[in-house]
């Protein structure tokens, strides 16, 4: 479709897309996650990663961290829409804060056959200061945390070792403004 459409042209929207991490404080009540997920799918926004946990038992509050893609206008619209939901206390784009920190945790199971592979794995594990969760013959489980980029880098490096089998789980980023 050309630019004369009444609808926004997707090509332009993706061009200026950038990754944003949103931090949302909500009342911990039934259906709240469905409301948020429904808002994203219903309005055509993306969820790249999502993390929900109760953070304040006394006041019954959960913090939801959402990683999403979109140009600035879209991100602002997402925040305005989130803040309209009744159980939502606040929605913040961490990028708009002066100071904020992000972290993600990842568990990696690596199966290997020989000592050469083992050495290479150990080398990367050392560089990235991973924590060893389990180690036996031909199998190791590491825990690595940090920013998503750091974890991506580690996983990229692992792919340079041929013949190993990697299985993993990631929490998605969590973030906190200071």
């Amino acid at each position: 479709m050309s630019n004369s459409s009444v609808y926004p042209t997707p090509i332009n929207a993706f061009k200026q897309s950038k990754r944003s991490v949103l931090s949302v404080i909500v009342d911990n009540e039934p259906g709240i996650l469905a409301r948020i997920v429904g808002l994203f799918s219903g309005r055509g926004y993306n969820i790249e990663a999502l993390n929900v946990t109760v953070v304040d038992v006394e006041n019954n509050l959960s913090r939801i961290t959402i990683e999403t893609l979109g140009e600035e206008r879209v991100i602002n619209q997402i925040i305005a829409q989130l803040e309209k939901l009744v159980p939502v206390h606040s929605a913040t784009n961490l990028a708009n804060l002066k100071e904020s920190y992000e972290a993600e945790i990842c568990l990696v199971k690596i199966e290997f056959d020989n000592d050469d592979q083992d050495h290479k794995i150990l080398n990367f594990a050392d560089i990235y200061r991973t924590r060893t969760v389990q180690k036996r013959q031909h199998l190791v489980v590491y825990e690595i945390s940090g920013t998503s980029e750091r974890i991506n880098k580690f996983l990229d490096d692992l792919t340079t070792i041929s013949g190993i089998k990697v299985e993993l789980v990631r929490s998605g980023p969590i973030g906190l403004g200071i």
Partner: protein
Amino acid sequence: MTSGPGVTNVVTGLTDALMDSIPVVCISGQVPSHLIGTDAFQECDTTGITRPCTKHNYLVKDVNKLSETIHEAFEIARSGRPGPVLIDVPKDVQFAKAKYKSKSEVIFKPHRIKSGSSEIDGQFIEKLVEHIQKSKKPVFYVGGGCLNSGPQASNELMKLVQKTNIPVTTTLHGLGCYPGEDPKSLAMLGMHGTYEANLAMNECDLMINVGARFDDRVTGRLDAFSPNSIKFHFDIDQSSINKNVKVDYHTNTDITLSLKAINEHIESRGVNFDQSQYDQWWNQIEEWRGKNSLLYEQGDEVIKPQHAISRLYELTNQKDTFITTEVGQHQMWAAQYYKFSKPNRWITSGGLGTMGFGMPAAIGAQMANPEALVIDIAGEASFLMNIQEIATAVQYKLPIKIFILNNEYMGMVRQWQELLHGSRYSESYVDALPDFKNLAESFNAVGVRAKNLSELDDAINEMISVDRPVIADIWVDKKENCFPMIPSGAAHNEMLLSKYDKEKPENQEKGKVLV
């Protein structure tokens, strides 16, 4: 309503209310708590189904929380940008007992109610007044938010308009915010708005949006929408700001408060507006007005639908009349030819465009205003979508009037098929309509009919004078199209004026994919 099918049927009504910012509290029955999740008889996931079409919803599992929940539901429905709220109550909770908590005993959490800001944005107001003084071609673009803010908002708007001499155009839902007969009114804008309203929007240098949301039916093609204007936006809903159109200044404060503050600012500062500063602008507007975009040619025999509405207006405007509509050509003609002098007299389905809306809306309006004259301006196809409700009107002795512009077509569908799909008509003609006069009588309502021009006024007068529900079957020109029209995807200055206008949409093929 009842659980299961009752709930699935109400989804349309809830979505309609959500789109048009109408406060509604809907209480639905649910199967007993212990049966939830077992695929019980008439069970459905009510909160799941209605989540995207309500402002908020609840499943009440503990009777002790019921009164608190209901109070909160009413607060949420009315506050900020109003909307529908649903409360799902399982059968065992309906039968259980608990101590009633009155509203004053409930402590509302402010983050859940989300009323708009009550703080006046002083900078916004100063900037606005400054820009009004500077501008040469300003226009007010007023929407349903102005009505939702209360009738006082219309009074404040009127004051401001009289002081500043700025023209006013309203959206479909804003009709009545500003008197339609007033010379400063440019009437409705948008897809079927007047030539002068749309051209004023296109060429203005200052746009003051009061409670409207830049809907696609109003803006037309976005990249050609009012390219040279400074835009001010009053909207209580933060998410309406910069959603479709980027604005220069905005406020989320309630419109009544903001407009009042502007009027006070003007008075206290002794701001004077040079009444002649817009002379050139008004001359231009009068020139556009001179095109007479709502002109139609009424012959001697066949009733033109526009004429039927004009006559209805002339014969009812001395009474306190409420107009509801269905959706389609008749709705647009009603918006164009029925002039509203005060707010809250016009009830129509705008955002969702729900055929079948008008009669239940008329029933509600008549219930709330037993002495008023309530007329549903309908098309025969829309009317048939909720025909069973005529029984409700008869049973509760509600003397609503159904004024059917009967052209035997789904007229708006036919019009689009003609203009944008090369006259390939499909499923828009109804060859098996009931006899509406007999139909009325079979329900114990009254039926009247006008087959040609000479019978029109008598039919309208009879309809008004009977104190019972009436179905008036007005036979109108079958092939009449609704003009002016901005084809979907076109800009404000690319409008089609009437069928005598030889211009066709520039790019028919492209038009077909638009709605």
